[in-house]
């Protein structure tokens, strides 16, 4: 082991996280949400918007909610409506949207009949999604995946067509992974915008059309370069599961998807979030998507040295919850970040200690390492150096996913040349110090080993405290990110519905069957140097 980490603490922390996740599970199972139900409709192929740009899934779910029927699951009622009206799925959806049919007038159909009808449709879409997953695996197998850390860059012009230009350029410069950043505010929309969009602020709306446009562009440039270029978006906010579904259909490869981010950083209701994240993660799991958790956010608001343990604590919780949604360890891209004050003596040692620690504690996770942002100023020259030290820490500690820092971080969302310079930075540093990882060992009992164990101990004690009082109470007490959130506060509680005993949703069953089968193992990297490997190195 590269750093002598006290594994007894790791075990204690992991088991506390397990208890925490188990504590939240009853809530997750007792409820559904409007966005889960909209997701069911989306998976069943109901898409499109009305003349006011309101998405059909919203119209239909709102109608069902108004009629007090959601507790049974939209799948049940849409099935009943199909049977009652003798219409196909898309016909009934349109009829409902046009208010030609109303849920009020639909009688309950026989459950088993409904299930048969819906199961048929659900199986079809699931095999489509599985096909997308297998297609990804084929494409990866066929291409040169390079060596980790994989270079992840963002595009954020607000216009999907400009994004495509930027993304293709980045891929040609050597980027492995492209994330399309969302417009500010989208996470608080309780619907998913529709169609190609060109008018975002600080990012581009996540829409299914935009996903498709970017996917095609990246497949094309990937073919040109002989590499598979991964596409990322945000499976987060009030529409978390819907976006998971869109991503599954459009073969996105990674999703920002965190169990607590929405609660803490977007003031979304905690029950809504916990319920949503579970279903969204099942979809991600089934689609072979790697999730990226958002622990970096803890450090953008608090001091990175002082609060390092909150990152680790959150990683354990994210891991525990992710496992309970069927994600394999190789899909759990836990986040961490390089955010210490650059003017701190030995800051690089502390950062490196933490990066090595994460690598040791989560050996199979494709860790996602986030760059300096908070301490970036308009001094692009110094910023470029901070990014270089971050890249060095990434290659020394053997990270999997390296989100590249951009020298203009303080200034604007990245311009074409900023991204070019960021990729050049990463390629230079990582190649110039390629095998340094194998060349050096750290001092026993040195600054780094001490630091890593300190952080681990603090995280463990925090987790044990949380396990004691339950996660929801801990959040109410402000134990995470120094923000207090009420169990019934925040946005989206009105979309949380207690399930009836009759509740029906065909997807979890289909997903879990595959996810728990022993041969489910999505090929994630296909690094030729290591054979068709997965995970870190």
């Amino acid at each position: 082991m590269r750093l002598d980490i006290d594994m007894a603490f790791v075990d204690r922390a992991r088991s506390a996280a397990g208890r925490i996740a188990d504590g939240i599970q009853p809530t997750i199972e007792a409820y559904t949400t409007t966005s889960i139900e909209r997701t069911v409709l989306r998976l069943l192929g109901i898409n499109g918007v009305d003349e006011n740009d309101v998405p059909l899934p919203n119209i239909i779910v709102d109608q069902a909610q108004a009629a007090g029927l959601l507790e049974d699951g939209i799948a049940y009622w849409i099935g009943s409506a199909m049977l009652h009206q003798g219409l196909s799925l898309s016909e009934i959806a349109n009829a409902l949207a046009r208010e030609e049919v109303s849920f009020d007038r639909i009688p309950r159909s026989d459950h088993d009949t409904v299930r048969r009808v819906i199961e048929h449709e659900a199986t079809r879409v699931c095999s489509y999604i599985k096909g997308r997953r297998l297609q990804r695996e084929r494409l990866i197998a066929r291409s040169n995946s390079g060596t980790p850390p994989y270079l992840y860059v963002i595009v954020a012009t607000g216009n999907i067509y400009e994004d495509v230009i930027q993304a293709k350029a980045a891929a040609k410069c050597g980027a492995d992974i492209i994330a399309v950043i969302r417009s500010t505010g989208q996470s608080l929309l309780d619907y998913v915008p529709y169609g190609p969009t060109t008018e975002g602020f600080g990012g581009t709306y996540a829409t299914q059309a935009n996903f498709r446009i970017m996917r095609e562009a990246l497949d094309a440039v990937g073919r040109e370069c002989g590499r598979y270029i991964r596409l990322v978006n945000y499976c987060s906010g009030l529409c978390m599961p819907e976006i998971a579904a869109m991503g599954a259909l459009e073969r996105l490869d990674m999703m920002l998807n965190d169990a607590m981010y929405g609660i803490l950083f977007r003031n979304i209701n905690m029950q809504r979030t916990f319920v949503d994240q579970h279903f969204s993660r099942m979809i991600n799991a089934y689609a072979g998507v790697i999730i990226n958790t958002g622990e970096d956010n803890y450090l953008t608001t608090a001091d990175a040295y002082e609060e390092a343990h909150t990152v680790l604590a959150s990683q354990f919780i994210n891991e525990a919850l992710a496992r309970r949604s069927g994600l394999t360890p190789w899909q759990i891209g836990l986040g961490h970040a390089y955010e210490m004050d650059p003017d701190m003596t030995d800051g690089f040692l502390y950062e490196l200690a933490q990066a090595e620690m994460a690598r040791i504690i989560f050996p199979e996770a494709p860790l996602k390492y986030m760059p300096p942002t908070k301490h970036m100023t308009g001094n692009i020259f110094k910023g470029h150096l901070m990014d270089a030290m971050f890249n060095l820490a990434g290659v020394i500690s053997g990270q999997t996913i390296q989100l590249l820092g951009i020298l203009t971080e303080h200034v604007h969302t990245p311009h074409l040349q900023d991204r070019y310079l960021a990729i050049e930075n990463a390629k230079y540093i990582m190649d110039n110090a390629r095998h340094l990882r194998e060349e050096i060992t750290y001092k026993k009992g040195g600054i780094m080993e001490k630091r890593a164990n300190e952080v681990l101990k603090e995280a463990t004690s925090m987790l044990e405290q949380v396990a004691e009082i339950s996660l929801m109470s801990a959040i109410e007490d402000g134990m995470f990110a120094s923000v207090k959130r009420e169990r019934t506060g925040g946005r989206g509680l009105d979309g949380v519905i207690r399930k009836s005993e009759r509740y029906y949703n065909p997807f979890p069953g289909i997903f879990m069957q595959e996810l728990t089968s022993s041969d489910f193992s999505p090929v994630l990297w296909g690094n030729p140097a290591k054979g068709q490997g997965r995970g870190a190195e």
Partner: protein
Amino acid sequence: MEVNMTRVRPYGDTLDDGYMQLSFTLPVQCNAEARKAAELLGEKMGLEDVKVVYSDNIADNFSFFVVYGRCTHSVDMTAIDIPKVDADFMSYQEINGFIEKHIGRKIVVVAACTGTDAHTVGIDAIINMKGYRGEYGLERYPWFTTYNLGSQVPNEDLLAKAIQVNADALLVSQVVTQRNIHIDNLTHLAELVEAEGIRDKVLLIMGGPRISHELAIELGYDAGFGPGTLPSHVGSFIAQALARTIRNSKEHTKGVYP
């Protein structure tokens, strides 16, 4: 070395040599013509001795350039007169003392990061207890009552809260500036305040990394605070501005109804 303040030019290694560094991208293939275009662009900008010292193809039909040249323009520093926040900066103690003496009651401020903007670190630095760079936030000041509404607050909600608590000052933070979304949002808030008829009753204050006092004045605000602002700066301004208003209104009252 004697700098002529009426015509200040960039300095490389000799007074008035005008040296500058530029970098930019042109949407063309990287070749001799593109390099010439980069040079011509530099010349159009008023550079002499333009040297394209680096060029690279950074995508199909995009070239990146690093350019050095000598700027022929100069600036008259003696003619620069920019508006500055009208306040003598005081310490925590002094501010509280000042309010006690000149205002005699707690000052009420309502703060938020409005619109779709969710960057609360800046406004929290000014308002919240823990403050910024070793200084307490206004929340900690005994002579301030603060309401920090957090992030992504609609302008309407901020205004409603201000009216509800009879706020003396409205503090709004804007960090995202892409496509000038902050200008739209800040203008909208000013209009709402105006429409509500309470513009003369509240201090309207903006802040953020791309905010300047100049911009604030332009948009009809009372003050604007940029990067590096400390809570005491804002506290000093609010206290003194409020004291001025009170004094003026008293004098005004005296004058009209003697």
